[in-house]
């Protein structure tokens, strides 16, 4: 019991900040906006942010080992366009979808993962470069045009169908989140991720294959970007070379808001969920209140910096310097 308390005291502060702000935001919105506290509105919030949550789960793995993946938005655009191509070539939807998602994981592992994790190049340089390549290729293949895909039943189903009374994107996003939590908390691999991010050299000397860990997290992030891309294609019934622009930055912001540190080794997917929810509720609230959605990134920036500032101040107080 005391051990649990101790753990709560040391682990909780990571995301209580954003949790608190989220709570206050929800209270304010439910008092001022009658539509806010409705089932439909909540499902709507989750549905619009399902892709962000999936990408953010992948980004959490990358950030936990002290990296960042700037290529995810470009990769998502490329996945969508290649899916369009495959379907146009007459490949059935199920194998096509599997193919693009697995392909994304392979490309992410080989390009980002190996270059960053094994060759030890800077993750910023590598993923900035690959992201540019991905989006560029998407432009080349599509001729720069958004491609309509409403004729494919399966994609329509993914975008607007329901499982267990919930939109499919929401179910998929929560399944991804749940699996991610189990992997990070209860599997040996999860502990390896924390160890590698917390102290790479110590993890290596303790016999952990740190190269495998840092290569694999980029594969995981790319795999999940593939999943998110298929969901987006389904929801929009089109593939666009400009799709998902900047989603990697929003996802990264959500992860950092959720208390995962930029240098790695500390953080959790529960925090990431709170970070994504905060962004979702904020956008929803602004829309409900009739405020221009252009304010959303401004508020995001302020809250992100404020959250990290509070964290820093607390550290200063703790170390007394």
């Amino acid at each position, binding site marked *: 019991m005391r051990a649990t308390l101790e753990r709560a005291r*040391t682990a909780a502060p990571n995301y209580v900040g954003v949790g608190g702000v989220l709570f206050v935001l929800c209270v304010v919105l439910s008092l001022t906006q009658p539509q806010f506290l409705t089932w439909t509105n909540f499902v709507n919030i989750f549905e619009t942010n399902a892709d962000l949550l999936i990408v953010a789960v992948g980004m959490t793995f990358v950030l936990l080992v002290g990296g960042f993946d700037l290529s995810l938005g470009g990769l998502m655009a490329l996945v969508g366009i290649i899916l369009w191509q495959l379907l146009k070539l007459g490949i059935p939807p199920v194998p096509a979808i599997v193919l693009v998602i697995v392909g994304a994981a392979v490309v992410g592992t080989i390009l980002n993962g190996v270059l960053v994790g094994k060759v030890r190049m800077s993750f910023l340089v590598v993923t900035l470069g690959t992201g540019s390549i991905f989006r560029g290729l998407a432009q080349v293949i599509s001729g720069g045009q958004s491609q309509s895909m409403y004729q494919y039943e399966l994609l329509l189903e993914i975008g607007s169908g329901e499982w267990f009374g919930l939109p499919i994107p929401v179910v998929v996003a929560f399944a991804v989140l749940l699996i991610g939590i189990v992997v990070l908390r209860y599997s040996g691999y999860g502990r390896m991720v924390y160890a590698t991010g917390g102290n790479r050299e110590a993890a290596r000397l*303790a016999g952990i294959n740190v190269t495998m860990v840092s290569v694999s997290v980029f594969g995981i992030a790319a795999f999940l970007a593939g999943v998110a891309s298929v969901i987006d294609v389904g929801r929009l019934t089109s593939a666009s070379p400009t799709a998902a622009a900047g989603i990697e930055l929003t996802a990264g912001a959500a992860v950092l808001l959720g208390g995962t540190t930029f240098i790695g080794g500390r953080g959790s997917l529960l925090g990431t969920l709170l970070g994504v929810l905060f962004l979702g509720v904020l956008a929803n609230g602004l829309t409900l209140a009739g405020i221009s959605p252009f304010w959303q990134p401004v508020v995001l920036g302020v809250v992100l910096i404020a959250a990290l500032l509070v964290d820093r101040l607390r550290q200063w107080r703790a170390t007394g310097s």
Partner: protein
Amino acid sequence: MTGPQPPLLEAIAVGKDFGSVRAVGAVSIGIRAGEVVALAGENGSGKSTLARILAGSIRPDRGSLLVGGEPAQFTRPRSALDAGISLVTQEPSVVPALTVADNVMLHRIGRGARVVRRRNVEQQAERALALVGADIDPARPFESLAPGERELVELAKALASDPRVLILDEVTTRLPDPERLFEAIDRLCRTTEIGVVLITHRLREIRRLAHRAVVLRDGELVAELGRDDLSDERLSAAMVGRELSDLYAKPTVAVGEPVLEVVDLVTHRCGQPASFAVGRGEIVGVAGIAGCGRTELLEAIAGARRRSHGRVRVGGEPVSTRSPARAMAAGIGFVPDDRWSQALLADQSIVANLALASHRSWRRTDRRRDRDRAHVAIERLHIRASSIDAPVSSLSGGNAQKVVLARALALEPRVLLLSEPTRGVDIGAKAEIYQIIDELVARGIAVVISSSDLLELLGLCDRILAMHDGEVVGELSRALATEEAITVLCGGGHRAA
């Protein structure tokens, strides 16, 4: 301390705590012009913390500092520099890609956006280099310098800001030939009005350079010795504070058949192959100055260095040195050089740190087993912590080191490699760690200890290997090993059989 002139720098009852650890209690010390004051003490005695307080890079919790008799408060390193206090540490403080001149004059870069004229900078740098007797072209890139030259440039860099007090913190540990540096310091004290604080754990350097010595133990000043009292006996008695024989009470264990055999092991950068064997219940020490390759040797046996060749056998079975995981599986336990950067996840709990070595499978972790192990480890190694869930960063150096040791022991190794097992550990924990090592050899484990602490090696080891320049240059049995003999061998003096 009552000269006609006030001391250049004076600390009055300064103290500093880190969390619950009292690094420096209440120490008073003064430095006058033209003298070299040695700050002596064991690892963890608080001498580096005191040096940082004097240099303004740590703010003391208690006490005050006087510069030239005037109260001073250093809010940042720059203000100490402005007051004429300059610190040189073991960690390089240079920008390798810049030229020697740019590095020497680095302090000027922070002084506003003046147009930098290369000719000027190089002339000023040359003057500072001449002060330390270094004949180095200031236009050369710093990276191109040899190890000995680098330290002289660091010293010149400290002098270029015209300090009145120069604080040297273990600067000789990386030096192959410290004599040049000693001459430079000697000359400085004779020719300038500078005061020098010399921090070292090497008694020989204190005898060679210091006018007097201040000895710290457990954060308190325990002795002040004048030039005539600077004998090894007086110094070490003051530093350790008790008879050394208490500390190293090794019970004699009969040495059995070889457990660890190392044949023609070549490590990266260290040319000559090394071969030796360690028997059941034997403790073999590896001595040598920093950079001699003893750290690399242990890392290579532990599979932690990629580019190494040679054969390692444990119990007659060949062991791959390709990865730490394989070495561990073969029964080699390893406690690396630096616990914070190489062994521990500072933010994480004792449980998580102890479980680190068992996370090599992808399968489900067994929390119950991990927690049970942590309880056992705390009890067996007397680790003092508030709970097994306390982050290791909250532990003292000694207790953190015991966590690292406990993790190596959790895999029940047949061979234990210890690199600097008691660096930065207080004397009490030191004795406990020695006791643990004694228990291990009594159970038949073969132990290899690499240490910069000669007394430790002399007290613990059955045999001592001396290394110089990446090569094992000699071997001394317990009966023949003396501080002098080892020092001569490690300095590359002459070889013994």
